[in-house]
């Protein structure tokens, strides 16, 4: 249909949403867990949460389930006294204890709803700590934004505190966003094919997918080094794969260090990946090699191979903003109908991104930002779809509505291997073609 249709629908949804005080089956998590994921991609870094016991234990468990990896999170251990008298002593003691026991290369201090409401001046407290490496404060109260903005804030804090102009390096900064180890490996493969050197912000491909080889290193191998983060100020350009989760960091590098930035759609599907590679090629001045043209051809081949199996199927997608909007275009490329494109995080930019897809492709899309899964379920019931895509928490909607269901997003814990397989790039597109088609075939077989 037209852009106006999409827009009109969005406004109605926004009104209905504003009326409800209760969130049922949330579509977003809190800021600290997003920030932690960013920090987990930095070599030798540890997050120290300035909060109560659960602020460390709960996110750890989510990471454990999704990545099937051990995760360390430190805690300032705020109790009743701190709630009354402030948490400065806990924070100072905590930083020192963590340095003494683990000798991390970087400590990221994450605030919480608790410490922000108490009103601790975390930046001020940390400035007074005399240590070789100053801890980096990250403001991530849970009553603002979501895990997506938490990641965005964390990445911005990292470059703000560490990036330093020293001299051109001919590298490209790539802010990854809340993606998976498999995505980063796919990304590295594309960059290697173009022979571009890159700084990945931040690189969880080894830290959250570590080999089982003994003895285990003190910190997982891999991850973005502090030197690399410092060097981001000297790069020839920056690209944020997910502008909602990493966009602020590349903007900061442009403003402060004049590093040119290109923001595009998340490289999911053919056109978005084409655009990404053109951007890399443009920034680096290097051509896109045959190897990637062939990979593109394999994706198209896979799409044509399955097109009678999936064409015209109506799809509902709930994922983080950039993944959801990227998927909207890919679903169109697959000959399917993006009926509902939803995200848990409130974002006007997300709405505009999906509206652009709607107007360019002619699809009538129900666009829902700030969408909990209850609302997604209601929308699915209202418009009817053949396939629902979302994280493990959303699987029940497929069951209840007797539609096919394919997993995407975070957390995915009820099937194995998701975190190992890319969704970005041509290779990721092939994985998605397989996953979507098999979900539809499995569903048809079991019906």
């Amino acid at each position, binding site marked *: 249909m037209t852009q106006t249709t999409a827009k009109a629908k969005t406004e109605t949804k926004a009104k209905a949403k504003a009326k409800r005080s209760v969130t049922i089956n*949330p579509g977003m998590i809190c*800021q600290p867990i997003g920030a932690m994921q960013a920090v987990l991609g930095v070599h030798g870094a540890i997050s120290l949460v300035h909060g109560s016991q659960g602020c460390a234990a709960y996110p750890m468990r989510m990471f454990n389930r999704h990545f099937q990896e051990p995760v360390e999170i*430190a805690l300032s251990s705020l109790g009743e006294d701190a709630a009354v008298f402030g948490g400065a002593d806990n924070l100072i003691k905590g930083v020192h204890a*963590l340095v003494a026991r683990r000798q991390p290369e970087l400590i990221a201090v994450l605030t919480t*709803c608790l410490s922000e409401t108490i009103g601790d001046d975390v930046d001020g407290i940390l400035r007074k700590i005399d240590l070789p490496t100053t801890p980096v404060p990250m403001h991530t109260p849970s*009553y603002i934004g979501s895990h997506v903005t938490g990641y965005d804030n964390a990445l911005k804090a990292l470059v703000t505190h560490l990036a330093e102009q020293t001299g051109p390096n001919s590298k490209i900064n790539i802010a990854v966003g809340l993606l998976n180890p498999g995505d980063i490996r796919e990304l590295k493969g594309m960059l290697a094919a173009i022979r571009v050197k890159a700084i990945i912000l931040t690189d969880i491909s080894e830290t959250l997918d570590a080999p089982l080889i003994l003895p285990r290193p003190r910190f997982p191998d891999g991850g973005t080094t502090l030197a690399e983060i410092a060097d981001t100020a000297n790069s020839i350009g920056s690209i944020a794969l997910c502008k909602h989760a990493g966009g602020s960091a590349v903007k900061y590098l442009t403003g402060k260090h004049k590093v040119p930035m290109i923001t595009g759609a998340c490289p999911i599907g053919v056109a978005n990946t084409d655009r990404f590679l053109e951007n890399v090629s443009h920034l680096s001045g290097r051509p896109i090699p045959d190897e990637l043209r062939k990979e593109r051809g394999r994706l198209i081949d896979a799409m044509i191979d399955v097109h009678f199996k999936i064409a015209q199927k109506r799809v509902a997608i709930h994922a983080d903003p950039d993944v959801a909007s990227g998927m909207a275009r890919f679903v169109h490329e697959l000959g399917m109908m993006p009926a509902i494109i939803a995200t848990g995080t409130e974002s006007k930019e997300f709405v505009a991104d999906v509206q652009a897809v709607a107007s360019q492709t002619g699809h009538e899309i129900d666009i829902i930002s700030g969408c909990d899964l209850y609302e997604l379920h209601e929308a699915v019931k209202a418009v009817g779809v053949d396939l629902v895509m979302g994280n493990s928490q959303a699987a029940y909607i497929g069951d209840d509505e007797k539609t096919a269901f394919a997993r995407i997003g975070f957390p995915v814990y009820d099937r194995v291997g998701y975190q190992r397989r890319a969704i970005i790039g041509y290779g990721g597109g092939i994985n998605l073609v397989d996953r979507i088609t098999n979900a539809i075939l499995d569903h048809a077989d079991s019906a």
Partner: protein
Amino acid sequence: MPLTLLECDIPIPERERHTYIKKSGEDIVPLANVQTTPGDLTERGCTYAGCMGVVGGPVKDVIHLIHGPIGCAYYTWGGGRRQNLSDNPEFHRKYCFSTSMQEPNVIFGGEKKLYNAILEAYERFPAVNGVFVYATCVIGLIGDDINTVCKNAAKEIGVPVIPFSCEGFRGVSQSLGHHIANDGIFDKIVGTKEPDKVTPYDINIIGDYNIQGDLWIIEPLFEAMGLRILCTFTGNASINDLAVAHRAKLNVMHCQRSTPYICELMEEKYELPYMPVSLFGITQTSKALRDVAAFFGLVDKAEEVIEEEVSKILPEIEYYKEQLRGKRVFIYQGAPRAWHWIKLMEELGMEVIGAATAFGHTDDYEKIIERIGDGALVIDNPNSVELREILLGYKPDLFISGLKEKFLAYKLGVPFVNGHSYERGPYAVYSGFVKFAKDIHTTINHPAWKLIEGRA
């Protein structure tokens, strides 16, 4: 041997008071139930986790509404995470309710939002029999009067709305949350209804959360002895079961860390006695059945049940015992399972070389020390650095702990069984014991361990 300091704890010497190497005849118990050292890489949970995640959450027919910013609700949302099962899976643990407090709510207060949220949730799920409201950290700081809001909302919707002030910062661990949930359920639910009928053989099973269906293999044993189960606290419980729990003749208490509170309150107010039991392994389960049967004068029935059940599993247990003899185990659990399972491991011919709890109190450690052998390590609230040192230093053949420690064990090449939510359970009583033994045997003997590069 006295209290000891692990090498990794030299920078935080206060950990010495939590770390003890058992020696018979000494009167030493490690320090327990105190605030975690700041900067610790802790594995503990918070007060809210104990209240909502452990005790409140299993109640199957109420809306569990978390009042606070979104994270805490998300982290306790079903998905099989805790695996405490109920017979109402179409609602229970499938739905997660939160007020998702935003910055303006934090500034101007969240009472109105909470009130509206209760009504809206009930309007959408009118089949529920009540609403549990849990306050998270921010709520305690901004001072929302959740008691009054819940009272007013209850009047409006006509079902009980029960507030729990279980802000995460209130206690040092999950433990205070258990207590808050016990008190709230006792004060506002127990005794508010009368059962349709009572019999002289009514019991409550207190402190079992039906992990992977534990209760569904526990209950038939008591029923086979002629007892009737009035209420389970809180695995697979309806709020209406909790309301009539005061009319039982005996409280059979399984988890002795999270539920002594309500047992004592019921004893005091209703003269309802309670009996602590351990329902893991042959010896302890049989003793529990005998003790409970003796209370009701049903000793002969108990012996029949025990004989039948034990004869069913004995051949398999003997097989596993042969296979597992001499294997060394380190157990880290919430609290009581650390001591419940020392005996059970011995029944499998294994040796417990260390035991730890996340939120045990002094009495839990007394029980551990009473049961564990000389030279074993007993450590309170161990963190990931200590766990690494213990696993590498003591080299146990098996580590039994929870999800947060699972992948650390794997990465260090140590066979592991999840004792919190189980692997292929349930693990309780007799049939569960076989499953437990099988899982232990499976991990210890798995061929992939031998393929790890660098594993001695």
